[in-house]
């Protein structure tokens, strides 16, 4: 079984797209909470189109942002994705070209500042987490920067899972009914309990023996 196929079958028993969305939504909610910020967003990098896609938003009351795309190497989010460097900006003087533009255009809300951190998993820069408008009465500290980095690490793992699951689902879609049938079978066995589960696994093992010899 190829790696893609294995991943596809695994995806059959993995959590649904909805569950992954919940994970990302929870991530932006927590990010916003940790820093007492007005909003938080996650961008996922789309390799096929070389763009950044809004995947989750908290606090702007504008779920319409989700699915919007921006170029992968311009603006603050693009800079952070490409350079792998976290960045905090505050009191940004009003200029239509600054990195808050894409948010301002679609929500009417113009952030005065943001923290942006790359979501790096292994060698890959998989996306960008932005936390908008933390309270400015306190001076930013390196401790907060470290916290942002730690949190970004955890978020990157979630984003990587989502990316892999989507890729696997793509394989399922392209492969048609045969792989889907396998995934369904794997899912059915996984839901069994006790002796029935053992019997199901024994049956699969026998089947494997039969078709590989």
């Amino acid at each position, binding site marked *: 079984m190829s790696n893609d196929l294995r991943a596809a079958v695994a995806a059959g028993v993995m959590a649904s797209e909805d569950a992954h969305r919940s994970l990302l939504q929870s991530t932006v909610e927590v990010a916003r909470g940790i820093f007492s910020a007005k909003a938080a967003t996650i961008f996922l990098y789309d390799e096929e189109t*070389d763009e950044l896609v809004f995947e989750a938003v908290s606090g702007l009351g504008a779920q319409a942002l989700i699915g919007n795309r921006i170029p992968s190497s*311009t603006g603050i989010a693009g800079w952070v994705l*490409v*350079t792998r460097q976290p960045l*905090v900006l505050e*009191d940004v003087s009003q200029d239509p070209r600054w*990195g808050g533009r894409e948010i301002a255009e679609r929500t009417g809300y113009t952030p005065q500042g943001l923290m942006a951190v790359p979501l790096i998993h292994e060698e890959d820069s998989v996306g960008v987490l932005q936390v908008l408008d933390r309270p400015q009465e306190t001076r930013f500290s*390196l401790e907060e920067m470290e916290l942002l*980095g730690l949190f970004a*690490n955890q978020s990157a793992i979630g984003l990587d899972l989502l990316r892999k699951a989507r890729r696997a689902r793509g394989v399922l879609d392209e492969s048609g009914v045969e792989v889907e049938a396998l995934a369904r079978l794997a899912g059915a066995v996984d839901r069994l309990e006790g002796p029935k589960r053992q019997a199901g696994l024994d049956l699969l093992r026998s089947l494997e023996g039969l078709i590989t010899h």
Partner: protein
Amino acid sequence: MSSAEHLPAWSLPAGAAESLELPTEWPGRVTREWAWGDSTGKDVRVCILDSGIELGHPLVGEIEGAVAVEVGPGDEIRVVEDAEGDLCGHGTACAGIVRSIAPDCKVFSVRVLGAGFTGSGTALLGGLRWAVENGFHVINMSLSTTKSQFAGLLHEAADAAYFRRTVLVASAHNMPVESYPWRFSSVISVGSHEETDPLAYYYNPKPPVEFFARGVDVEVAWLGGGSARSTGNSFATPHMTGICALVLGKHPELTPFQLKSTLYLTASNVVEADE
């Protein structure tokens, strides 16, 4: 026989030690006054490898020139004149910090952003090679890549810079990830401290990060002739770049090794410990 071209490159024959006479008179004790007193960084060519520089920004002033690195099919690199300015604001911020420390240095922009994420490692490497070939004295790299396929090539470029007397100043990562080129010993790697003095910097006896410079709550130039308050190692790096420009403005003959030694001897924690 003091010019670099006449020095023995690979070995030192008997009686040739005289040819190693150094052009710099090293004082008994290296002080900040000796290192950069009265220097404005004049005639030092500084390259900002970043997102471009906004033309005519009051905190940056005149720049020497600007090019952009384009990545074509088959990862072919083209370096072209750049009229785009800054695609993000970060390059302008770095240029402004360097200018605030070394007001008379020459600032040049090499834009390596804008070619998309896919071509970004290739653009970074191409831009660095171009800058090294063009003989800048200091190259500010507030960026890094995590792609191991570029590690060896970046390492070669960093060593080439070192031997050609081009100083690479690179942002360290403050997240637990492997990235390059700041991890190489031939570059000056920079992390942040929280103090407000732009000339305060610390030597770190526990590398890979070698120096800490001002990187928290820094007032920087931003797009549209404006400004912002910023935090990150990527802003600490141009502080060290500016200090390098000051030292090289006064002592242009220093090699990167000598420059790094000078930075060590004049670091805030070393100076204080010596007093």
